[in-house]
């Protein structure tokens, strides 16, 4: 049995919260550059120029790239032969969020749904735990802003809608979202499972680096087909018109009930923030 002290987990989470908000990953900044180079709209090009300069400032000055530093969403994989000592795992992660957001001057964005009173700590965090074989402990953060999360949805489609129906649904949804979710977006899609699983699959797909295709060639082909249709919508950077509406489409896929065809669409703004660490 491998032991990990909860303090180590808290320290790792503090760093993840801040690094994710200050430093956009290389795959993301590379995708910005490609979008700026290929953009036909002068306004769209200027928007991409600002987004690239913004990422450089956030990195060099250690300030949040976006003021909406998001809901702190975690995906935790914990080996069944790992024991957390010195306190509960959930508390260790929450302590890291509280400290990371306070000391990093990150915005605290969590509030009561009705009174709208802020919890002032950015807690609660949303934590997805997965028990895996072995002794590894992997924790990934994907801080998620409100603007793009508000443009996300779950659709319980009919099996007869099929592949074409799913494509239409996703493209129409992106069209309807228009300028709101801060394009160029990354479209996370979960196909199959059930009501809650397709949404979690959609969110989890956003952790995959931009440009990396699904291992199954048929799903990979579907991703490319949907991406092309979305970019033909003309929404463009920040919705001001252009050829770069989405940086990528990521699909996760699994079997579902014989009566169902659930799909989750999780829209991610251009600030595709994800960081992970292995303890």
């Amino acid at each position, binding site marked *: 049995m491998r032991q990990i002290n909860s303090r180590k987990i808290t320290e790792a989470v503090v760093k993840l919260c801040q690094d994710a908000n200050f430093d956009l990953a290389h795959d993301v900044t590379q995708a910005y550059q490609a979008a700026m180079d290929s953009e036909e709209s002068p306004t769209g090009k200027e928007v991409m120029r600002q987004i690239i300069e913004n990422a450089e400032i956030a990195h060099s000055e250690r300030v949040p790239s976006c003021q909406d530093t998001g809901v702190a969403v975690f995906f935790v994989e914990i080996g069944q032969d790992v024991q957390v000592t010195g306190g509960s795992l959930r508390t260790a992660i929450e302590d890291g969020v509280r400290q990371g957001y306070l000391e990093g001057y990150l915005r605290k964005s969590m509030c009561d749904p009705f009174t709208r009173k802020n919890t002032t700590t950015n807690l609660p965090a949303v934590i997805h735990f997965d028990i895996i074989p072995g002794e590894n402990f992997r924790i990934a953060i994907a801080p998620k802003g409100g*603007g793009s999360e508000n443009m996300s949805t779950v659709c319980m489609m009919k099996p007869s809608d099929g592949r074409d129906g799913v494509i239409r649904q996703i493209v129409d949804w992106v069209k309807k979202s228009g300028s709101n979710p801060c394009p160029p977006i990354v479209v996370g899609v979960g196909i199959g499972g059930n009501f809650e699983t397709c949404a979690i699959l959609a969110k989890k797909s956003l952790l995959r680096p931009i440009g990396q295709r699904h291992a199954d060639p048929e799903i990979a082909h579907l991703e490319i087909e949907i991406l092309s249709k979305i970019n033909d919508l003309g929404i463009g950077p920040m919705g001001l*018109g252009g050829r770069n509406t989405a940086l990528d489409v990521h699909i996760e896929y699994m079997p579902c009930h014989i009566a169902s065809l659930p799909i989750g669409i999780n829209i991610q703004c251009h600030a595709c923030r994800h960081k992970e660490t292995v303890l």
Partner: protein
Amino acid sequence: MTEFKRIQTPLTDGAVLTLRAGDNLLISGSIYTGRDAAHKRLVDLITAGAELPFDINGQIIYYVGPSPARPGRVIGSAGPTTSGRMDAYSPLLLKHGLKGMIGKGSRSQQVRDAMVEHKGVYMAATGGAAALLTRSIKSMELVAYEDLGPEAIRVLRVEDFPVVVVNDVLGNDLYETGMKQYQRQS
């Protein structure tokens, strides 16, 4: 390179009439911050016939909830939030003298009609470019509703704050025209 037009606040009707959807602007002067909760309070005051905490005539409201400022800094990261959430309140504010709004994302037909009727303009700042936009903000002062935290009304002194005009007094909408221009049949 993109061509920018420089404008100064407060905005006069004459200045607003010259602005067109698609214009790239650099704004200098004072702009006010406000989002959901502050808008509700302003509209409640107008409805009750009470005085507003600042003279709204000719002013611009920027939809922003900044991150906390680090010690020694004027403001934290300060990019635009989604404007649609303010749609319910904007027509009344335009009627009472508001000239400009800065945010991101599309506005309702009612807000667009109110801009035509009362000579107002809606401008988009680049969402997510919060660290960059902060560089154009030179000072910040509390105006009202400190209890709202990041949602309080503050006045920002800005220099060359970059925006694009989305909706103008003629009823043009850059989100619609821009999308039509670059869409392809697939």
